[in-house]
């Protein structure tokens, strides 16, 4: 069944179309004028202005490793993040901490910790799964490089982005 859409019945003034065209021209002229006088502010001109101050707390940027208050890398190389990572961007080479060490009872630490930022999809599952609160998604979003090798964040780079986190997990203190 055909559906008939009723057409509006125009009076002679509307049928001339010229008043409508003039009012349309005035609307666009107002936009042009406001833009010219700098009253409209829509576009963020990126490299000069950055959205950093506007990023919400839940923003998921580049993943990073953190140290705790004692300067120890929090990661215990459990490899849960490597396992959960959907694009398999994380590669961990675990190493052993000797018994005699101050943190001997932690037993494992990451010898190498690489995140391939070409593969990373910023999903944040590594942060969610981490039992040690050692990996966090920070607010760095401009991750660039000229080669594929540059785009792989190694352990030093990750710690540099991450910095020190004074967290709530203190289970590896030597007193306990």
């Amino acid at each position, binding site marked *: 069944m055909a559906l008939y859409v009723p057409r509006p019945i125009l009076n002679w003034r509307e049928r001339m179309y010229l008043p409508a*065209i003039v009012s*349309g*021209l005035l*609307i*666009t*002229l107002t*936009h*042009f004028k406001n*833009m*010219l006088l700098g009253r*409209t502010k*829509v*576009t963020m*001109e990126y490299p000069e202005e950055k959205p950093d101050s506007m990023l919400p707390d839940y923003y998921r940027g580049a993943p990073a490793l953190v140290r705790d208050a004692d300067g120890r890398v929090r990661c215990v190389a459990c490899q849960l993040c490597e396992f959960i990572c959907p694009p398999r961007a994380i590669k961990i080479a675990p190493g052993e901490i000797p018994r005699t060490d101050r943190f001997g009872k932690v037993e494992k630490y990451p010898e190498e910790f690489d995140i391939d930022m070409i593969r990373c999809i910023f999903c944040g599952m590594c942060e969610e799964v981490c039992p040690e609160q050692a990996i966090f998604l920070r607010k760095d979003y401009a991750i660039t490089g000229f080669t594929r090798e540059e785009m792989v964040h190694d352990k030093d780079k990750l710690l540099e982005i991450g910095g020190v986190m004074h967290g709530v997990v203190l289970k590896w203190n030597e007193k306990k």
Partner: protein
Amino acid sequence: MEYSLIFTSLLKIFGIIFLVILPMVSYSVYAERRVSAFIQDRVGPNRVGPAGLFQPIADVLKLLLKEDFTPSGVNKFYYWLAPCLAMMPAIITIAVVPFGSTLFGVPMVIADINVGILYVFAIASLGVYGIVLAGWASNSKYPFLGGVRSSSQMISYELSLGLAVIPIFLLVGQLRLTAVVQYQIEHGWFIAPFIGDWTNPAKWLLAIPMLVSFLVFMIAIFAETNRLPFDLPEAEQELAGGYHTEYSSMKFALFFLGEYAAMITGAAVIVTLFLGGWHFPGIPDGSRGWIFGLINIAVFFAKVTALLFFFIWVRWTLPRFRYDQLMRLGWLFFFEIALVNIFLAAIIIAYFPT
């Protein structure tokens, strides 16, 4: 004598084409992008040079360096001919338009011929051949539809284009464009009766048909130059770019720049016919000193620039006409309006002999 004429003519041709028209063409593309951006609350190209002013140069370099691809199914001869035909008429037409009074005693018009406006119409309507040939030679259905649309659009608009200017030449009595400008200097601009002897009632009466022909002529020029709201031949959304779909590199650029050159020529013709040409009240012509000659040229191009802004402004305001609406508008309204307008102007001229 002969040599000096040839020399000054060559100087005028090179000056006007390479120093004024071609830079104006490329900068009207820039203006189009900036103005459209501002109208839509965007920023537009602002990276290359101060405020993006070198963007046209970068665009030209990009287009020159791109691969010039010729599809295998095309008719090579017409495929190559079409971009030239799109660009040339627009530039040739400027020859008869007086763009200034005199400079050092040399009249600022390249060819002051006595068939002025007929020459303009004859050459300007050749521009459509570029589009039709491009559409046909491309051997592809979208360009073909664009070419067909262009040809039928032209025959429905050329009529009102030609008829709209008849009242002016009834009044002036000559087809020479310099004579039109001279008449407007003596009697005031055609659409501005308050300039000059404003107490004359015949002038105010004549301003009515002049205003009507100005509107009809302007709208016909919009259609002639394939500008929105009449850009059916290149309708991006319907025809994937229309007649220049199969073109690349500098051949595409020639179509693109040809459209803007046609716009500038159209604006120059409108300025000459209706807006007093290079005349501005209170500024004497070039015989009083070369500085006034330069000011006259500047006034002319300022008027052209203002009209170009209007062209761009209209483009980013109005939506495109549907095809049947365009034909109806051309054949049922503007043709009749222009015809009645001629009679109206003729009656007024007959009752108030100047």
